[in-house]
């Protein structure tokens, strides 16, 4: 069908319609800017920029364009009938607004294409507009199930450029918070993964136990999520009075709860059938696609940034890196459960050895003067104003800091040109990379396994799209 720019002669204007008594008809609008013909690429999925034919081959080799052969060119014949099904972006089991284009041959998935961008809010760009001190409010909203890891990662990058030393207490608080956060995030991962496979009670239990940890976060920071607590230079406030008792209580109740989870899932034939040998990925594939976190460790590779690239003094604490064997959904589930135990182990050690001292660096170029001093001295007040209106200056340079978030390697690449705001901030979001593994995990598997596979990656769309 061709569309033209010619006004539709048959359409009546409002005036004419009033005279003849007919209802006015809307004028047809030319939706294709090209004027006469539909453009070649009309399907939504071909999001890639399409270069012209001469450059195309080169672009394909460079990987900047993926050949979109989702069009079924010939008419399907006989048994070779394939069907393309869209799952999402508003499907409850895609953990947000992930859209999957799935090519089916009967019950079997032949190809999958994850389509992202539905939650894109330009957070990396926003970071360029926020001073280093404000940056935490932005990054904490990326991976909203692991806000402390985001804050820590950003702060580490800023501190690396600044060259500031962080007091031991601040470091210990950071580890305490991030490890508790890992537990809470893994609890949600277990809960949602089980729910997608049909175990509703597991979902309720997981969220119930996470609530206990969130209550502690609220006590310490004032908010349940998106805390803006870990800042460049330290943490925003000291731990609240009575924190030790709260943490101990969490550590005491969790093992009992984890036993419940094991009772529900570990030997449950439905769960085992639906997760073992589902969504398998090998170590080579995982490395090639940049998958990290439990997904990579489930393949048997012992790779954990807490061991290989320790941050914030985590090397002082003893813990094991948990690995799996088969790289399937079940292994990822097991790894999450066992990592909760390891994180509890770390939290216990931190609680026992929490050093005394400051929770914010004493470097007056980074941290504002203490409250009491402002009332006494004019200099302190002026310094306070200067620090907050201009922000602290971060020396020119670029850096990359990474932490092991519950989902994998969370990195922050930061470029500063010597001002009070980052020139560029980029986040290496683990969910974004993990989602790339979906096509290989789901190839030639059953439709019913889709939700189990997606949930086992524990993708957070806020993290994917940023």
């Amino acid at each position, binding site marked *: 069908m061709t569309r033209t720019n010619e006004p539709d002669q048959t359409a009546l204007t409002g005036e004419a319609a009033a005279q003849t008594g007919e209802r006015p008809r809307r004028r047809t609008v030319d939706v294709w800017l090209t004027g006469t013909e539909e453009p070649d690429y009309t399907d939504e999925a071909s999001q890639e920029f399409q270069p012209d034919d001469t450059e195309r081959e080169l672009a394909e080799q460079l990987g900047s364009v993926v050949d979109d052969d989702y069009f079924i060119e010939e008419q399907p014949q006989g048994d070779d009938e394939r069907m393309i099904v869209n799952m999402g972006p508003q499907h409850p089991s895609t953990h947000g607004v992930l859209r999957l284009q799935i090519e089916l041959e009967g019950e079997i998935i032949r190809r999958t294409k994850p389509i992202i961008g539905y939650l894109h809010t330009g957070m990396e760009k926003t970071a360029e507009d926020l001073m280093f001190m*404000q940056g935490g409010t932005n990054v904490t*909203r990326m991976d909203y199930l692991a806000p402390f890891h985001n804050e820590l990662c950003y702060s580490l990058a800023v501190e690396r450029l600044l060259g500031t030393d962080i007091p031991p207490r601040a470091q210990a608080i950071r580890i305490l918070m991030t490890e508790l956060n890992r537990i809470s995030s893994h609890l949600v991962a277990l809960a949602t993964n089980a729910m997608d496979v049909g175990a509703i009670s597991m979902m309720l239990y997981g969220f119930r136990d996470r609530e206990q940890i969130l209550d502690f976060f*609220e006590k310490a920071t004032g908010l349940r999520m998106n805390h803006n607590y870990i800042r460049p230079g330290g943490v925003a406030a000291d731990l609240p009075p009575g924190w030790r008792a709260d943490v101990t209580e969490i550590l005491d109740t969790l093992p009992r709860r984890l036993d419940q989870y094991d009772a529900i899932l570990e030997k449950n034939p439905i769960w085992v059938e639906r997760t073992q040998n589902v969504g398998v990925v090998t170590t080579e594939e995982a490395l090639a696609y940049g998958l990290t976190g439990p997904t990579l460790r489930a393949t048997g590779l012992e790779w954990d940034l807490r061991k290989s690239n320790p941050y914030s003094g985590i090397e002082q604490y003893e813990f094991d890196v948990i690995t799996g064997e088969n790289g399937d959904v079940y292994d990822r589930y097991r790894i999450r459960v066992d990592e909760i135990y390891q994180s509890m182990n770390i939290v216990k050690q931190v609680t026992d050895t929490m050093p005394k001292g400051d929770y914010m660096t004493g470097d007056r170029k980074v941290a504002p003067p203490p409250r009491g001093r402002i009332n006494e001295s004019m200099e302190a*007040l002026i310094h306070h104003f200067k620090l907050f209106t201009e922000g602290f200056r971060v020396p020119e340079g670029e850096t990359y800091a990474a932490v092991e978030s519950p989902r994998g390697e969370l990195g922050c690449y930061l470029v500063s040109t010597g001002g009070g705001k980052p020139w560029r901030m980029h986040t290496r979001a683990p969910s974004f990379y993990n989602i790339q593994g979906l096509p290989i995990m789901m190839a030639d598997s059953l439709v019913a396994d889709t939700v189990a596979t997606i949930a086992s990656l524990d993708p957070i769309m806020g993290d994917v799209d940023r």
Partner: protein
Amino acid sequence: MTLPGYGLLKGMGVTLRQMFRKPITVQYPKVRETPVPRARGVIALDQEACTVCMLCARQCPDWCIYIEGHKEEQEPSKPGGRVRVRAELDRFDIDYALCMYCGICVEVCPFDALFWSPEYEYTEHNMDGMLHDMDRLQDWLATVPEPPGLQQ
């Protein structure tokens, strides 16, 4: 080798036992949880303490604080003394529809004019109502706990 279906029954046993426990859900309008002392519920303003320095408005990452003010001359405290100038607030609005409760404004205020109050019941049917003017913000001051939670 265990009996077939044993794992399933074990899991159901957990669910069964759970049925006889007290639910942990708090039935909100009837039962209320006490907010923690550091809770960031709503921001209270002390108009007397505010010097209209605009630091909070400048620092807010969302730009959701609107301040206007003017200078006022004050009578000298004793005859023949110096005339003092004091800044007076004309407008101090916080748009809670935009605010993300980051706490930066409370932290940066050098004159202790902003505080966190744990009150949280101020939802509105209409978004305009989320813009609290300075009198409403002043009213929240009565609900601020002692000592102020997150403040250093």
